[in-house]
């Protein structure tokens, strides 16, 4: 049947949780009512990327981009756009600067500078229908590999592409495949790491939810290239939709003989299984992940031997992450040469980032390597909301670091990020504005490592808790200057002595904030002041008598009844000793009478205090 129009409804996790299902129901209902059933097809696609605008509906072939679509908007869109050909303006986005309406994805700055390779099919095809993937040239690369290429040629193509592992460390993918290919052994395994655990990062989930066959096809190609017969996708249990779609995809691929015995009649057999992780961050570490697949406690072990030599059940095992696999098919289709021209010399291709934090456009973006942080944050991300000042960008999750404004023009590459004390990681990018306390940020990331330490080695198990204690002293205003030195001693030892990457990189957030924002630590330690006014022990709330209108809103929201009326005037004041510094009064005051200050030790007393200590 030929449809006149396709309504691409995003069915990614964000859109689903914002009510995409109800929108779909309303769309179908209205389409039936206006009798467009034979002209309009609704396609449930994978994630479009701009998750803060969910639910998203794109009408093709007009490419009109509707956001924040509620069921009643859906009805209107059918009646207006689909029936009468008039764009329904209420759900269009406006340019934040010009306030003009933006009609299509291409006009939206968020999408304009992106280059989609990994996410090429996400938001376009129905991930639950293998035929849509095949219609977009899916499984052609597998056909090409099985029909006309040798294992060596496949790996050479990857080496030419200079693709690096997208899991964080950036190890050359071709070289890894070569290791496994050359490793002695009849039995080998291919494993996909989908235990995406960095706070805020969700590119792997998006690929698995939006385009699962791309990963299956790549893993099958990998199986052929390294000589494996079986593969596992290790997906965290927190991704139920991804698990369901991948399992469905495996089933569909088996039905078409794209997986299983004698694939495409070439004599090559390969099959995949899903293993569900139970929610430990450390299981993203390769040796812990393999232990977990084997049914053991997910704990890292020392390397060597590397998984490429001794992995699952002692057999050579190829382990890549989802985004890495998602790059394989385009490389095989278009050639390694083509891929190596994208991005920079040392880091080729694109990288998907999860933009989050104090930024106007949050969501998933895919950009060529080498784009600067400034371009990503200001051009794609649309800058900082509320006209606040940019303070730092955090990349690499809990293993990464904070990048200050002076490095905003650094091109984003594996090596450059390392040089400025952060790392690529899996692609989380959290933007912080002037309201973020860097000590508090370091403490937040460290808390994550304390919770997620597997407990095997003392530097990580105890060391992270010890560092956390010291940071707590800073945020409570109990730290001394020498605590900075103490912290540095611990970080050095923990980096050097920890068993796995989780422990070794756990001090990174502290080190990068200490390096770029040392003065904040000093302010906490010496002046007992939190410059960003975040650390609750170091801030004071007060009510400006001039501004207070006596409405009493603050008094009503105060959970500890610290705000009371001052004598006979109808004004309010905060009782310092009772205040728990929750900030509720600040949030509700309509006249900005509540102010937050971090006074610390007054400047005149500071000298004296310093001399004493």
């Amino acid at each position, binding site marked *: 049947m030929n449809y006149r129009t396709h309504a691409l409804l995003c069915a990614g996790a964000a859109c689903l949780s914002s009510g995409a299902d109800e929108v779909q129901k309303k769309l179908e209902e209205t389409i039936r009512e206006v009798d467009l059933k034979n002209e309009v097809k609704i396609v449930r696609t994978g994630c479009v990327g701009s998750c803060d605008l969910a639910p998203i509906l794109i009408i093709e072939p007009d490419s009109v981009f509707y956001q924040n679509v509620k069921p009643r908007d859906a009805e209107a869109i059918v009646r207006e756009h689909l029936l009468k050909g008039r764009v329904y303006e209420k759900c269009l986005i406006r340019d934040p600067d010009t306030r003009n309406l933006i009609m299509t994805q291409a006009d939206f700055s968020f999408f304009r500078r992106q280059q989609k390779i990994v996410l090429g099919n996400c938001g376009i095809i129905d991930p639950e229908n293998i035929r849509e993937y095949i219609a977009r040239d899916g499984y052609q690369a597998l056909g090409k590999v099985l029909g006309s290429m040798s294992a060596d040629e496949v790996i050479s193509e990857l080496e030419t592409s200079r693709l690096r592992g997208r899991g964080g460390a950036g190890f050359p993918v071709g070289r890894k495949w070569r290791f496994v290919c050359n490793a002695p052994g009849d039995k080998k395994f291919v494993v996909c790491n989908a235990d995406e655990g960095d706070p805020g990062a969700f590119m792997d989930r998006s690929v698995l939810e939006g385009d699962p066959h791309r990963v299956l096809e790549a893993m099958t190609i990998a199986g052929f290239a390294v000589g494996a017969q079986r593969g596992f996708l290790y997906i965290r249990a927190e991704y139920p939709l991804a698990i369901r779609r991948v399992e469905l995809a495996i089933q569909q691929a088996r039905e078409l003989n794209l997986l299983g015995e004698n694939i495409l009649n070439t004599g090559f057999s390969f099959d995949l299984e899903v293993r569900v992780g139970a929610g430990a961050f450390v299981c993203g570490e390769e040796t812990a992940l393999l232990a977990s697949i084997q049914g053991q406690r997910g704990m890292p072990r020392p390397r060597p031997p590397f998984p490429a030599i001794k992995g699952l059940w002692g057999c050579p095992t190829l382990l890549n992450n989802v985004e890495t696999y998602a790059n394989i098919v385009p490389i095989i289709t278009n050639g390694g040469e083509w891929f190596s021209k994208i991005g920079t010399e040392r880091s080729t291709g694109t990288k998907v980032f999860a933009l989050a934090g104090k930024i106007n456009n949050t969501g998933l973006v895919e950009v060529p390597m080498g784009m600067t942080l400034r371009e990503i944050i200001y051009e794609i991300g649309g800058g900082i909301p509320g006209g606040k000042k940019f303070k730092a960008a955090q990349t690499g999750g809990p293993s990464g670091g904070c990048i200050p404004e002076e490095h905003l023009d650094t091109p984003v590459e594996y090596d450059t990020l390392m040089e400025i004390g952060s790392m690529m990681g899996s692609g989380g990018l959290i933007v912080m504005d002037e309201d973020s306390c860097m000590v508090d940020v370091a403490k937040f990331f460290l808390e994550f490592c304390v919770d*997620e330490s597997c*407990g095997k080695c*003392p530097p990580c*198990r*105890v060391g992270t808790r*010890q560092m956390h204690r010291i940071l707590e002293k800073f945020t409570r205003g109990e730290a001394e200057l020498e605590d900075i030195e103490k912290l540095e001693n611990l970080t050095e030892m923990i980096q050097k*002595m920890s068993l796995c990457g989780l422990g070794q990189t756990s001090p990174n957030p502290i080190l990068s904030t200490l390096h770029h924002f040392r003065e904040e630590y000093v302010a906490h330690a010496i002046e007992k002041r939190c410059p960003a006014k975040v650390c609750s022990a170091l801030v004071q709330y007060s009510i400006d008598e001039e501004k207070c209108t006596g409405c009493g809103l603050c008094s009503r929201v105060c959970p500890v009844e610290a705000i009371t009326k001052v004598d006979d005037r109808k004004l309010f004041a905060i009782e310092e000793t009772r205040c728990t510094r929750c900030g509720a009064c600040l949030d509700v005051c309509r006249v900005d009478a509540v102010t937050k200050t971090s006074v610390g030790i007054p400047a005149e007393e500071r000298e004296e205090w310093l001399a004493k200590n």
Partner: protein
Amino acid sequence: MAGEKLINLNINGKPVEGKQGQTILEVCRGAGIEIPTLCYHPNLSIVGGCRMCMVEVEGSNKLLASCSTPAEDGMVILTHTEKLKEYRRLNLEFLFSERNHICPFCESSGACDLQNLGYEHNMESIRVEYLAPQLETDLSSPYFGLDHNRCILCTRCIRTCDEIEGIHTLDLVSRGGKTVVGVDLHGEFGTSTCTSCGACVQVCPTGALYDKMPSYRGRPQDLESKSTTCPGCGVGCGLTVQTRYEQIIRVIGDEACPINTGHTCRIGRYESISYEAERIQRPRLGAKSDSTDENTVLAKCKTLLSKTKGRKAVIGLTSRATLETGFEAKALLKALGDNAVATLLDVDLPPSTTPCGSYDKIMDADVIWLVDCNPARSAPVLASMVRRQVRKRAAKLIVCSKRRTDLDKYADIKLELTPSDVAKLMAQGFKDKCTDESIVLDSPRKKTLDQCFSGSLKHIVITSDRPDRHGQLQIFPKAELESLKDANLDFFNISVGTNTLGLSAVLGDQLVNRKDFVGKPFGLFIACVGDDMSEALSLTVRQLDAASEATVLLASYESEHNPIADVTLPVSTWWEEGPSHIVNMTGEIREVESILESKAGIRTTAATMRCLTATFDPDLKDGTGELPHGNRAIEDFLKNVWKERKAASNE
């Protein structure tokens, strides 16, 4: 693992030679360079968790754990740089800060790896905060306690439980700072699957796991250690016994003994020492109150003998009796006259007793058959070998028994067949490579069974000759299986007691089955019980006492289970036995050492028997004259016996 190819390394500026396949730690220790470790144990797998053994290797930008990194030719290694020492000290500070490691209150103070390393690294204080949470202490086991507050999570206990005892009762629970060693996840020892082998206690580097009885009874430096053989069963494990003030404080597995390499079981470690039982101090006639001197007692024995003259005399022996005792028993039999025979009091003797193969065969088996036996009770260390082989090396386990056994849960197949049916099934299987239809099995079990017979897998059959309901000894008919050409088969008979083989070799035809006397009146009964307090043994003694006209009891302990004999003579315990020998189930001669000095006026069982022999027949030479001198001679003697038996059984 270590091959013979030599490699050259440079460690701390000095050339050091190692072998291909060794780890850096092994090379260093071989060269006398001490690298501190906590989680490393030579008998266990390597986890690289404690991070104490980190070293610098030229060309590597990371520090490497020496316990897990293979040594390579040409490596340049630094083991004790200032940086490393500082890192190690901080690592120790982390461990000390993590939980309660207040040494003065700890049982293991003075024998603690953590404490020793603290001293070694000049750690007089710690520079980080004490975290010390209040954790539980598990005192539910009768033998040992687990104090989580002292635990450093080195996982040695967990690995021992899993890899040596093969039971995997212990494992880590929770993660990060909340990690603890869990017993059956969230259980406690007293009600767990734990076999109480105590191996975890032996490998614990701190005071987290400690034996209850020996607690606070002496630091290692106060104790004297001697090696001997376990009296518990026919496996013949080596034990290291620690004593103080002529008292046994603690028994542990002997690391140097190749049979058990440091492992032992609940019986060996805890049950072989009797802390509470009262010793028999003096010879006596009748009840305890009638203690008298030895001459009177010996005279009485002579009277008893002449009174029962012409009737059958029986010497009853515990299978713990040593070879030396066996020879004295032989002499005593002569003195008792032609009508005298000997019997074992605690095991039934199969008609032809020969040694089993070596234990290595179990550790190399592909298929293990347990036929009507429960090694977890009668030979626990052997059971641990079976579990290891089944759990770690994927051997198939086929349990054939109508009763429940402790190893049922590891069985690939459970067959409720009699030993003779099992033999039929096996003969069929080996001949036709599959089982016939006469024994009905469901298809998955049949499939597994047929797999076991396909190819040339190594089979081990573990049997035990036990009497059935009617008292008839059920003997596994192995002869017909042994004749099969295709079968790669070995047999273990675990009904063999501590020294059954040795006693049977010495006494030969004069050793008869205990069942022959029950209920049939005879003359004099000389019961050599020694320190064996087992109930099975007391029951036989009571039965034979009832059948005999007069009884002479040779025992170490007062026991209400033993009958009031006409004459009771005190004898020494296993630990006072003096240098002597036993033969374990594989035919290996094992030495029994004198751990404690014998008590005044109390002789060994052998010496007491010699007195009796001299009393009965002063012209007779004592048994020691016949005892082959030295291990070599005993070995030759035994070899001859086995050869003759083999020849006899082939006829």
